[in-house]
């Protein structure tokens, strides 16, 4: 287990290295010159050339790439072409905003998805099963922007229960410490703000959770069905064990591996897929941060943003793989 962990960690190095390469060159393949975009429509040729030189964009690509790698080794993400601020300094609030939203979405997806899957499997072919699976099917195919707008229309405009968008009440803003607003408000003992932040989280959380929730429900159901048909479950039931225990203790434990896989994958996708949700709900997260940077051809920001998100994705997959070995000792890696 230990050597496996080490090996997997070492494997991250070429993966991340390859990623810097791909991201670096793909970004430069986007048509559009940052100098031109920064200077706007009225800029002259001279102006553009002098800015290009200032930004180092007139250097050959490989020189720029090695400069970039050199910076990365010192954990320097460079400075934004647009704001001139250190990327490492300005990126955290956006990351935290996305993490907080993704965490809530994941919580909803797992709690609701797993339970719906279990109950569907338990009462296979019942009305609940059919309803849940139809809902899951709709959930998978539902466009996030449409769902988001429907949520807003129902819960904000019609019922007036929840704020339509944003992260907080701008008239009563949260004082940031960690940039995780739920934590910050607790640290400051501001229950009113905590509730306000929670209310802002619910709708985007559900919108973002819908697809993973549906997928998790379907995977849980099918893997539970498989396990519940196996001999030892039949034995357990024959011995008169309470159904609840059979399902939640014996079956779930053995059905959890595929659920874990899909949850891991979906967590990565949550980070990537946050951009639509962040746009609909005006959420100041990493998705919009990168999107705006693309609009301005802000290379250092795009590079760092994508690299960080990709790294998190890789790390989550690593954690999932390690959890397999932990949960199911039959999985051997040597």
């Amino acid at each position, binding site marked *: 287990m230990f050597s496996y962990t080490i090996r997997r960690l070492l494997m991250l190095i070429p993966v991340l290295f390859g990623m810097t390469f791909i991201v670096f060159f793909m970004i430069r393949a986007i048509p559009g010159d940052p100098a031109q975009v920064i200077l706007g429509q009225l800029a002259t040729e001279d102006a553009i050339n002098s800015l290009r030189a200032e930004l180092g964009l007139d250097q050959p690509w490989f020189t720029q790439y090695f400069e970039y790698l050199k910076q990365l080794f010192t954990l320097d993400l460079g400075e934004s072409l647009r704001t001139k601020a250190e990327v490492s300094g300005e990126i955290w609030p956006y990351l935290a905003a996305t993490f907080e939203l993704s965490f809530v979405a994941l919580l909803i997806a797992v709690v609701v998805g797993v339970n719906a899957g279990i109950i569907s499997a338990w009462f296979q072919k019942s009305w609940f099963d059919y309803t849940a699976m139809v809902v899951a099917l709709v959930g998978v195919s539902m466009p996030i922007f449409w769902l988001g707008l429907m949520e807003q229309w129902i819960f904000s405009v019609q019922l007036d229960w929840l704020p339509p968008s944003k992260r907080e009440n701008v008239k009563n803003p949260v004082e940031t410490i960690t940039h995780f607003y739920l934590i910050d408000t607790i640290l400051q003992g501001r*229950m009113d703000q905590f509730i306000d932040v929670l209310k802002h989280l619910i709708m985007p959380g559900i919108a973002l959770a819908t697809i993973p929730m549906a997928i998790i429900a379907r995977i849980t159901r099918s893997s539970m069905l498989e396990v519940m048909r196996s001999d030892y479950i039949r034995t357990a039931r024959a011995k008169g064990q309470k159904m609840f225990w059979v399902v939640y203790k014996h079956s779930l434990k053995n059905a959890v591996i595929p659920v874990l896989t899909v949850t891991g994958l979906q967590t990565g996708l949550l980070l990537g897929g946050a951009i639509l949700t962040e746009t609909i709900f005006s959420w100041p997260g990493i998705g919009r941060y990168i999107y705006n940077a693309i609009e301005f051809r802000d290379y250092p920001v795009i590079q760092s943003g994508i690299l960080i998100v990709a790294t998190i994705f890789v790390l989550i997959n690593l954690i999932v793989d390690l959890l397999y070995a932990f949960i199911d000792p039959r999985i051997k890696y040597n």
Partner: protein
Amino acid sequence: MKKKSIFLALVFIFVLGIALVGCGSEAPTEETQGETNENNEETNDDQNQQSEESSTESTLVFGRGADSVDLDPALVTDGESIKVTLNIYDTLVKYGDVDTSIEPSLATDWTTSDDGLTYTFNLREGVKFHDGTDFNADAIVYNFERWANGEKSSFYYYGSMFGGFKGDEGHVIQEVKAVDELTVEFTLSRPQAPFLQNVAMPPFAIASPAALEEHGESFTENPVGTGPFVFQEWKRNDRVVLVKNENYWMKDYPKLEKVIFVSIPDNATRLNELIAGEIDIADGVSPNDSTRIEGEGDLQLFVRPSMNVGYLGLTNTRPPFNEKLVRQALNHAVDKEGIIAAFYAGQAVPAKNPLPPVIAGYNDDIDPYPYDLEKAKELLAQAGYPDGFEMELWAMPVPRPYMPDGQKVAEVIQSSFAQIGVKAKIVSYEWATYLEKARNGEADAFLLGWTGDNGDADNFMYVLLDQDNIGSNNYAYYSNPELHDILIEAQSNPDQAAREELYKEAQAIIHEDAPWIPLVHSTPILGGKNNVNDFFAHPTGSQALTKVYFD
């Protein structure tokens, strides 16, 4: 078993319900906030202040589509930046509340020499910058010197409005001199008719020299002016917060204590925010949503006077668009009324000239090309294309005030063109790419538009259609030496009546040459709460919120 299944279904519904927790919980009342505060004395005052602020109607939340790019107006060209800076800074002279007439601002009055080469401004006494330093003639000189000596890469509005920078041949502002503490004199190298209009533009707002020196490059994030509101906070991609300037020179203004500009990128969400009461003004409302605002009892519609043009540019250097007859034929093949009815909810008028009717010098005698497919076919046949041709039709990917949905407008034009044998393929790129490729002349035909900066015809005709601006804002690559002479003459002639005649003449030439298909002049709309008063939707697209108050 059956009983159990019902029970479990209920459990599931309960789990779903957890996700909705908090839905029903009421917003905390003032008392509960007070209680919380008692437990935490340190932040007590601060919190009380906050709850007071949120309970009284003195904070205006302005919802808009995008964040500012910079808060130094001299550096930017985007409307979202100007919307904010206009409230932080003042200019020497300013536009009227609802039009582009010139009014005093930092200058109380001014005189112009007979030859139109010297402008002398008397400055307002006792004005202070937000950092406490004095505003005076030296500050004006400092700012203009900063722009005139600027890197070409930075102050593009200065360069384009005043013919370049210090040392350039066409540079209009020869000298800016402080005559005394409160008098400043501008010497021009040649008369510039729209000089006052130009000086009133928000990019030429006067910043505190002390703050410019203190902050250097980061001044753009720490703006200091003399305007009605003082900059407090900028969270990029999220919000800009301004607070009242207690020492503002306009007596009893501003009315508001605080203004918060929030970025809400999605149009539908912004409208939902307004209806839900979370924001007070929603910018950039889609024309089709105007009825929804009218249907809400506690909302009002603000209509911005139209000072824009949306057009289909034809790249005049690309065959077959280098043929005048082809361009005229296509002009006959667009049903502008139909487009307006379908996508502007009637909030636009069809365009026949490149500038809107509100601008002095508009030529109303021009007969628009009627929507006439037979005539179009005839002209195409004359031009040698009896069977039509294939082309690319570029649709802009982002909504703009003059073009709420480029894709759909392109589809309508495509189907009209098909009827005269012209097969148009609709093409779209991400916005920055779109502009760059169109500017490079890579499009056959492209949808685009323009909102006027200063209310002068020059700002439409010269900027968009003069040969000097090919590769800049003349995306159509249209050039006509005769037109060029007229536009330059109109730019330099101080006689307003003569200028207007020149512009009318210019429009006749443009109409004949048909470098574009002018489509619409739209009236952009905003939504607001009913209790918002004295909010003026200015034709330039940005307005100071100095006079706004709640009742």
